[in-house]
Every structure is written in structure tokens, then in C-alpha cells.
């Protein structure tokens, strides 16, 4: 394993203080701690509308924690988080309005185990929209087709699905309400390479057609290469670098060099 602790920070996030105008998510001076252990320490991050942001970092660096903090599942110690220009510490009403405009794919799927696939996908739709059963079923089929699953899957329960199928159903559920932002936590881990490629393709298509903003935590170099517009790297509780794939490849940061020029990376990127 590479150590990220000893290396000095060579690249700092640009424009940390200023909020760029079209930032759909903007995180300022975020600190999150469990007990006395700080996982995130004064982190700043902007995600622009309509971009696909790939988020990388060592295992245990706090990527999932950052995602969970943005969506409000982990309490923060300090800092502000704005999504769609709304401060999420505001009232419950604003929060709920924001919540229906994002979709989340959890690292382990988090499907409702006592509902079948169809009910899982329909769950958020039923909650927010008053539409007929027929349209609900049709939309379910549309989402299933989009994520590359067969219609027969609709009546199975999560315990009867393979790992990759769980990921896809979870994505279908995240997309059920046609959100403006999707948070994906390692969407392609556990998929076969063809499936992972299709997944990247799908995310791209959705971004082009729906103008979706995607916040994607991933370890998949292929995804970073083909799907992501921009890459941010987390280390020591901060963003240690962000930019395009080319910037990452050119970076002299030791961890980044290891990550993007390691043996596995060379096999992918060449």
C-alpha cells in the first residue's frame, strides 16, 4: 500500500475560496470526524452542472464518508454544503425539495430487501408523483432496459440477484425520478468488463441527454478514462488534486504517479 500521510501536498485546489457560478454542489471547509479521528479536514470541492466528476483516493481515505456527508447521512463538525444553491442546513422543506432532485447509488446497493425489483424502483416514484399503475410499470420497464436488465428481473427479490444485477437495479432506482444529480459509490465494482463498459456508456448517454451531473466514486481506471470529465483526488482529508485525466497523468504527486502510472494503470491507459 502507498502511504499518503508523509507526502507533502504539492497541488492545492484552485479557487477554493470563490464559489464558481454554475457549481451545482459546493462544499466549503468541510470537517468530519468520528470520535477524535478526523476523516475529512477542511475539504473544499465544487462540482459543475452537467459534468461527470470522478472521485478517487486510497481505500479508507473517506470518499464514501464525503458522499454520505453531502447527502446528509453523516453529521459534519464544521463547514457548509450547498446543493442547487441551497444550504442543506436550512429547513426541512428545502431539504426535501433537494432530495427529490438527486439519486443515490450506495456502495452496497442498499435495495429494500422485502420489496422486489419492480417495487424497489417504483418506491420513490410513488412517493413523489401521482401517476397511474400503468405508467409506473412502463417507467420501471424503461429504467430496467436502460440499465441493461431483462424485464423478467422485475419480479425477483434482491436476495435472488447477482452482485452486478444489484448494482444495476440500484442505479435504476437512483434514476427513477430522473434526478439532476446522481451520486454513485463505486458503480462498476463487481461488474464484468463489458457490463462496466456499458455502464460508463450509459452514464455518458444520460449526462448528454438529461444534462445529468454525476458524482462518481470509483477505483475503475477505465471509468475514469472514458466516462469522467474531471477527476478529484482525496488524500489526508483534503482534495489533493483535481483536473482532467491529462492533468492527473502529468502530475508529479507521488501517490498520483503510483495510481495513474502503476502497472495496472499502464495496462489500461498505455
Amino acid at each position, binding site marked *: 500500500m502507498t502511504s499518503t500521510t508523509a507526502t507533502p501536498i504539492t497541488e492545492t485546489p484552485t479557487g477554493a475560496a470563490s464559489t464558481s457560478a454554475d457549481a451545482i454542489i459546493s462544499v466549503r471547509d468541510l470537517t468530519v470526524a468520528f470520535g477524535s479521528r478526523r476523516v475529512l479536514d477542511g475539504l473544499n470541492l465544487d462540482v459543475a452542472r452537467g459534468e461527470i466528476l470522478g472521485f478517487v483516493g486510497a481505500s479508507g481515505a473517506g470518499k464514501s464518508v464525503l458522499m454520505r456527508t453531502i447527502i446528509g447521512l453523516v453529521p459534519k463538525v464544521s463547514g457548509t454544503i450547498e446543493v442547487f444553491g441551497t444550504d442543506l442546513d436550512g429547513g426541512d422543506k428545502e431539504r426535501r425539495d433537494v432530495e427529490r432532485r438527486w439519486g443515490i447509488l450506495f456502495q452496497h446497493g442498499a435495495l*429494500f*430487501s*422485502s420489496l422486489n425489483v419492480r417495487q424497489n424502483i417504483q418506491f420513490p*416514484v410513488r412517493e413523489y*408523483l*401521482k*401517476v*397511474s399503475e*400503468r*405508467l409506473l*410499470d*412502463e*417507467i*420501471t*420497464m*424503461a*429504467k430496467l*432496459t*436502460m440499465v441493461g436488465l431483462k*424485464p*423478467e428481473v*422485475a*419480479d425477483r*427479490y*434482491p*436476495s*435472488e440477484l447477482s452482485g452486478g444485477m444489484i448494482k444495476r437495479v440500484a442505479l435504476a432506482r437512483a*434514476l427513477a*425520478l*430522473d434526478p439532476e444529480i446522481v451520486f454513485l459509490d463505486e458503480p462498476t465494482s463487481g461488474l464484468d468488463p463489458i457490463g462496466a463498459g456499458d455502464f460508463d456508456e450509459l452514464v455518458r*448517454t444520460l449526462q*448528454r*441527454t*438529461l444534462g445529468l451531473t454525476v458524482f462518481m466514486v470509483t477505483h475503475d481506471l477505465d471509468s475514469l478514462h472514458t466516462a469522467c470529465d474531471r477527476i478529484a483526488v482525496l488524500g489526508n482529508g483534503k482534495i489533493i488534486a483535481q483536473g482532467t485525466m491529462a492533468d492527473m497523468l502529468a502530475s508529479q504527486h507521488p501517490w498520483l504517479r503510483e495510481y495513474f502510472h502503476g502497472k495496472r494503470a499502464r495496462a489500461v491507459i498505455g
Partner: protein
Amino acid sequence: MSGPTLEQIAKGDGLALCAAGSWTARFAPALEKLVGEAEKLTGSRPNIFIDVSQVSKLDTFGAWLIERLRRALTNGGHEAQIAGLSANYATLVDEVRRVKPAVPLPASGSALTAVLDGIGRNIYGIGETLVALVDMIGAVIAAWFRVWRHPSKFRLTSVVHHLEQVCWNAVPIVVLITFLIGCIVAQQGLFHFRRFGADVFVVDMLGVLVLRELGVLLVAIMVAGRSGSAYTAELGSMKMREEIDALRTMGFDAIEVLILPRMVALVLALPILAFLGAMAALYGGGLVAWLYGGVDPSSFLSRLREAISINHFIVGMVKAPVMAMVIGIVACVEGLAVQGSAESLGQHTTSSVVKGIFFVIVMDGVFAIFFASIGI
């Protein structure tokens, strides 16, 4: 953001359906109505263009409804086409074009067949439950003998841990409840026996009832509710998260590692709890007899000594380990029967408690008949 509209404009022998506004999930109910009406279009005009060039925003809901409209019109014998798609939205419409019509849910039968179906399944389930119980009893006995031959396989730490959970931690509540029951039994006895001057026989009743039946039965029911349910929930969630499969693949026997220690702990715990419970109930009864009935402690004790023999005590205590086994076996069978869902976990935990209590009472009846026929 403006709401969606769908206007009909006649053009020669064709018809243009001009969609405008934002066709998105937010407006889904309105969209559904618009499209539902347009789908019913019939008429002499064979050519229909669905013009979407004015649509300001489109998502999968909108795209699907447009596609659905096109399909409905085509099936209605029209020549329907979608026109004016921008390049971005064309990809989206292509995506939804691949969607096959929704598969209809399998038709469920009438209410009567559903009821009969349920009854049949339940009766069939009884047989399955009995087989599973016998299966588990066999597996536990086999595991017991394996451990007997290789005592190093015995998991003492685990037994001690479970003993703490099911015995030590249960003492306060068990003692409290049996104490109260003892008080109530004595009070009721005094109240009714007093009418024919038989106050002092309350001690006989209390002693026999508590030592033979109530002490162990009540405690067994409490243990089924408290520890049986915990066993089922623990094993069930381990099953759900494939922990039991993981154990098996590492060459461990789930019965030996998980179930035997729990059974041993329960078999040790229930007699101890039953004993403590019986003592608490006698104490409570004695207290009430003294304060409410005027039977002072020394005459209570001497009466008790006359009224009960060691046999009563033995009859009660012999039942305790057997009931513990029944509760443990039921709880473990239910725990291992949990399927992947949270709902199934809840169902099996409930049925663990219900079946546990049921079998405890059945066993008590069997014991009563047995002891009556051998004359104890």
C-alpha cells in the same frame, strides 16, 4: 419552467401533434392525461407527426410518453412519426424505444382460492416444521457427540458469553415477574379460601403450584420471548449476510460453532432461572400471606415444609432443561430458515417466539400426564 402542452394542428391530410413545455417527471400526472387523450385519436387522417421541437426539457418520463403515444397511434392504424428531435433527445428516445411493453403481473386467483391456498400451505408447513425440528435435534445431538469425543472443539468462551446474555442479564426481570406472580397467586388464594376458613391452605397451593408448574412454565415462556427471539434474530441476520456460508466454507460446522454453544447456555440457564423464579414467587407469596393474610413467616415455613416434598421440586426442575432444549431448537431452526429479506427475519422471529411458547406448553402437558401416571 412551463407546464407541458400538446396541441393538435391539421395539416392537409395529416395531423401534427405539437408538444411544448417541459416534459419531465415533475409534470408526469399532467403528461399522462395529455397523452392518454391523444392516444384515443381516431379519424380519417392517416399521417400523424408528433412534433417535439418546442419541448423545452425532456427526460425519460417525457420520452417514454412520447414513444408510448407513437406506439398507440401506430397500433391504431395511423402512420405516426416523431419529428423535430434534437440530437441529444434523439438518443434518449432511442433508449426508450428499446423498451418492451410491460409484462403483466401474473393474475392472482379469486379471494376464495387465495384463502384455500393459504390454508393448504400452512398445513403443509406444519409437516415441514416438524421435519426441520427433528433434523435440528439430530444435528445437535451429532454435534454434541463429536464435541464429546474431541473436547477441544468445545467453545467455552462462546457458552460463557451466551450464558451471560440469557441467564445473568435475565435475572432481574425474571425475578421481578415471578415475585409479582407469587404475590398475586397468594392474594387470590387468600381472598377465596378465607370464605371457608381455609386460609392456611394457601401455603400448600402456593408451594405446589409454584414449584411444580408456574415457576418453570412462566420462566420458560419469558425465556422463549427474550432469548429465543434473540437467537433467531442473530442467526437470521448472519444467514442474510452470508456469514453462515462463510463459516461453512472455512471448514467450520455452523451447528458446532453457533448452535451448540447457544443450546448449552440455554440448557444451563433455564434451570437456574426457574429455581430463582420459584424462590422469588415463594418469597412474594409468603410476603403477601404475612402482610395481607396474617400468616406469620415461621408458620408459613413450617406449613410449607409439611405441604411440599422434594418430589415437587424435582418435578419442576426436571422439566426446565427439556423446555430449554425445545426453545433453543425452535429458535435455531427459525433462525436458519430466514431468507434474504428483512421481512422474512421479522416473520421468523415472531414465529420462533410463538412456536417456542406453544411447544413449551405442550411439553408441560406431556410431563403432567407422565408424572400423574407414575404417581409423583
